[in-house]
Structure formats: structure tokens, C-alpha cells
């Protein structure tokens, strides 16, 4: 009596997260990003009205982890598929979850036009500077000099050009309501990333246009680094190329407190 104070739950697995383990490599931040999306869905009570659009890449099986209706798009076409869903079901929440090969290479036209149309969808964009699923090839986001399995001596910008800063580019479009870049390399930035994912879904729920959160993520296996080194690599190598900023925030979002 009185010896055991009541236990307060301060942290738990979100209901929107399935009871399973992921297939991701140790140290990969896909799991963190998935969880943030699941937590936001739970907080906003969106589980029953959300349709996720999975893409092609390591996150192809995201529907095994986030517990809501899902479709699986062809490589790069998630924004087009999301458009089709949202246009016939405008009161649902539709989000895509895409990697950098999917969104910024093969699917560049689809994401640009979805943003330009002000399509009321949310894109969660995982930037890990390479093609993860196929074994670490060069992506449009690969850093200058970065070694990948298809740029074995390092990305030569003379031959293969320069990294694409997708968030900055999409933010120039009038249809975009919320475009930011965040990172998953430490707890502080993870908290900021979650807040941004929340704001992206708030953007959609308020009909303020296209929203995208670009998340700098690790790929320890293909980078040839251990998990801690991979987090440091984001901070030291990726941040100088991919600044963490708010590139476009609809003025109407200023009233939203999250």
C-alpha cells in the first residue's frame, strides 16, 4: 500500500503500428520514419480514413508495418496513383512514402506535377543518397565523390551531374502548401521530423495543397558504415548539401499548434 506508485505510460507502440518486426537492416532509419508516420496518424485519429501508397524500394512493404488501407504503386508512380485515389475520395487522407530513386529519379515527373497541381496529398520522402533495395547504386541524391556500386570511384559530377535538392525545387511551385527537409540522425531532429510530418498531414486535412517532408536517412549496409557512423555521416556529409529548412509553409499553417 503506497509502496508502488501508479505506473504512468509515457511511451508506447502506436495502435497504428502492426505487431511485427521490420525487414530493415540494423541502423536503417526507415523504421523510425514509419513509426513517426504511425504516431501522427494515431494522434490525428486518421487510421480509418487513410490510404497509404507504397512505392518501389526498401519500403515496398511499408503496408506490413503501418496498419491502414494501402495500395502498392509502380516505381515512381505513387503520386499519380495517390492523385487517382484522392480525386475520387477527396475526404480521405492519402499519403505516399517514397525513396530518392523512386521520387527524385524515375518518378520526378509525377511528383513535380502532383505538387504543381496542388494535389492534396502528402509525400514522405526518404533521402538516403543511394538506391538501397537494389544494393546501393548511385541515385540523383548521391553526393559528389560518394562511392556507390555504380559509381565505384566516387560520383564524378563531370560525368553524372550533381545532387538534386528536391525539396527546394518543389517549393518553387505555387501548388505546394508545405515543403520541408528534416533529418533522422539524432533524437532532437527526429522530434522535429515528427512535428513536420504532423504539419504535412494537417496541410492535407485543411486542403492547403501538396505537402512533402524530405527526411535524411541512413543506409548503413550500402554505405559500408556501422549504425552510429551512418548517423554521423548524415550530420557531417549530408547536412552541408541538404540543409534542414522550411522551404514552403502555407501562411494558414501558422495558426496550427502541434
Amino acid at each position, binding site marked *: 500500500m503506497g509502496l508502488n506508485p501508479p505506473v504512468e505510460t509515457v511511451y508506447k507502440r502506436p495502435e497504428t503500428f502492426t505487431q511485427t518486426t521490420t525487414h530493415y537492416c540494423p541502423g536503417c532509419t526507415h523504421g523510425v520514419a514509419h513509426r513517426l508516420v504511425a504516431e501522427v496518424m494515431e494522434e490525428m485519429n486518421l*487510421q*480509418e*480514413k*487513410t*490510404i497509404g*501508397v*507504397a512505392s518501389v524500394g526498401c519500403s*515496398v512493404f511499408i*503496408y506490413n508495418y503501418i*496498419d*491502414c*488501407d*494501402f*495500395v*502498392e*504503386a*509502380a516505381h515512381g*508512380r505513387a503520386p*499519380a*496513383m*495517390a*492523385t*487517382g*485515389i484522392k*480525386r*475520387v*475520395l477527396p475526404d*480521405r487522407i492519402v499519403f505516399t512514402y517514397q525513396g530518392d530513386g523512386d521520387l527524385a529519379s524515375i518518378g520526378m*515527373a*509525377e511528383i*513535380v*506535377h502532383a505538387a504543381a497541381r496542388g494535389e492534396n496529398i502528402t509525400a514522405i520522402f526518404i533521402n538516403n543518397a543511394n538506391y538501397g533495395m537494389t544494393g546501393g547504386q548511385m541515385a540523383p541524391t548521391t553526393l559528389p565523390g560518394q562511392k556507390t556500386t555504380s559509381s565505384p570511384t566516387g560520383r564524378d559530377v563531370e560525368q553524372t551531374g550533381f545532387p538534386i535538392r528536391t525539396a527546394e525545387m518543389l517549393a518553387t511551385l505555387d501548388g505546394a502548401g508545405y515543403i520541408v527537409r528534416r533529418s533522422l540522425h539524432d533524437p532532437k531532429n527526429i522530434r522535429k521530423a515528427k512535428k513536420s510530418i504532423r504539419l504535412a498531414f494537417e496541410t492535407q486535412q485543411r486542403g492547403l495543397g501538396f505537402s512533402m517532408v524530405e527526411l535524411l536517412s541512413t543506409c548503413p549496409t550500402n554505405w559500408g558504415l556501422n549504425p552510429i557512423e551512418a548517423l554521423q555521416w548524415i550530420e557531417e556529409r549530408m547536412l552541408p548539401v541538404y540543409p534542414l529548412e522550411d522551404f514552403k509553409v502555407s501562411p494558414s499553417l501558422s495558426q496550427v499548434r502541434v
Partner: protein
Amino acid sequence: MAKELLKGNEAIAEAAIRSGLEAYFGYPITPQTEILEWFSRRMPELGRTFLQAESELAAINMVYGAACTGARVMTSSSSPGISLMMEGISYIAGTEIPVVLVDVMRGGPGLGNIAPAQGDYNQIVHGGGHGDFRPIVLAPASVQESIDLTIEAFELADKYRAVVVVLIDGCIGQMMEPAELPPMQPIQKRNQEWAVTGAKDRERRILSSIYIDPEDEEVINFRLLERWNEIEANELRYKEYFMEDAELVVIGFGTAGRVALSAVRAARSEGIPVGLLRPITVSPFPYARIKKLTELACGMLVVEMNSGQMLQDVLAAVGGKIPIEFYGRMGGVVPLPDEILAEIRRLCYEPVAPSADPRKSWMKRMDIAKN
């Protein structure tokens, strides 16, 4: 409803609307663009979805997404645009959801031209994207038939959760004929038990064409094949003309079949006992009927606006039992009835051996005609 003077492309679009079409996504390309333009005006005034996509690739994937919600959706394009849609068509087939597609064929390969042709037969009937599946393909030969088969396309798509293609050419798309449109049907919310709409008061659903375990994928392949067998057994459609006492048979689909009918009529007036078989479903293909006709006829002529793509299916059905001749025009050239009449006369008065290669002898004749 009374008959009106209608353009093929516009009649197809309006027929789709009256069948309860909820959403259309498309991209401009001649000779199909009137379909897109018709929807751009009509769909918004009915409070339905019209969206001009940034490419055919995007259009078919928007259709894919919308179809996953159980909505009645379609797109349309012409040959080069259809090539771009092949990716999405395969995914739709693999996901087993109903979609209707209109292909208004034009001259090719490559950019080709905007004149009527039938060079997409292989890409649609034997193609339709990667993997093991077959689309249902309907080939109307008039504006009225385009209307009727568009309505039927939606019913077949729903019935078999399949891709259904209405395959016409620029000729049928562009021409105007008197035709009757169906009465307006409201949009029916079908609440499909597979549709992805948000998991409210039910288990969540996942629509995907990925089956990472080969054993699972093989199960799907068998399921698609079983469904196809059902389609072959129940949905075969063709039309025959003057076939009762025919000793010679002409086979052609769409515009080629229609021009051939004029030639068959002319040949009949000359006393040549010739009939016409016009496949309406080119997929499933009337193999059994053609095989049966080899017992009744002593020669066949296949007429197409391509290099003999359907000819291969006819040859497979005939199995060398009777002589077959081929006559084709390509690249956007439409054959005239007189050209086909000359071929019917030749088939009648100068019969060839069953073993002769119909494509090679046709090429030889075309070469002679050129000189």
C-alpha cells in the same frame, strides 16, 4: 433515345458517362483527343472527376489508383501513348481490378502518323505489358457498335476484375454516323469487397501486384488463367455475314472488317459464294469458330490494316487445312473495297496451296502492284 449524328470518339466518351463513369484521366494525342476534350467539358458539369495528366504514364497510374477505390474509371489514348501505358496495364492486371481503356490506333511504328491503322493488335491482344495475363479486347466497326461495346466493356471489366480494351482506329474515332446513345445511368457506389477506401468498420485492405514468394505468384498466375478460361467460354463475340452458303471466308476486324463487308457484298453480286467473319472480341479470339469454318469453306482471306498480326491467330486456328490468303495495308493506309474485291476474286479463281505463305505472296503481289 433517337439517333443522332455522332463522332466516334465523342460517342464513346458520352457512352462511358452514361454508363456511370466516375473519373477519367488522360493525355492529348491524335486521333483520340476528342475523347479527352469531351470529358473535360462533361465530367465537371456532372460533378465527376476529369483530370488531364502530365503523361500517359501518369494517366494510367491515376486510373490505377482511382480503380483501387472501386470507382468506375477509364482512360484513352492512341498507339504511342498506349505503349507508355503498358506498365500500368500490367500492374492493374496483376492487382485484379477493373479498368476500361480505349485505344484509337494510328500508323506506326514510332511516331508514325495520325492516320488509321491496326498495328496495335499484337501490343494489345498478345501484349498488354509484362507478365502472364490477357486483356479482353473489343473491336467495334461503327459508331453505334463503339457505343454498345463501351457500355459492355465496363460490365465485363467489373464481372472479371479485368482490363478491357476498346480497340478502334482513327477512322472510327473520327467519323460521324447516326447512332443512338443509351439513357443516363447514375453513378452506382458499388462498395466492392476488395476496394481500398479507408479501413472503417472493417479489416484493412491492401491492393498490390507484388507476390514476393514465387509460389504465391504462380497461384495468382493460375487464377488469372482460370478466369481467362471462363472469359473464353462465355464472352466470345463475332459477327458473320453471308456465311450460310459461303465457300470462301473473309476475316477482318474493325475498320478492315467493315471495308471487307463492302467487298463481300460486291463479290456476292458477282455470284462469288463468299462470307465475312468479323471478330468483335479479338481477345478472346474465335479460334474454334474459324476451325469449324475450315470444314465448310475451301479458302480464307484475312484483311487487316497491319502486316498480318491477326493472321497469325487465324493460321493457328486453321492449322494448314485450307489455303489462306492475306491482304493488308499499313502505315495508316486504309484499303479500298475494290482492292479487297480483287483479292476475293483471286481466292475464288486462282486458288493457292494450303502450304503457301500468305504474307510472302501478299508482299510479292504488293511489289508487283508498285512497279
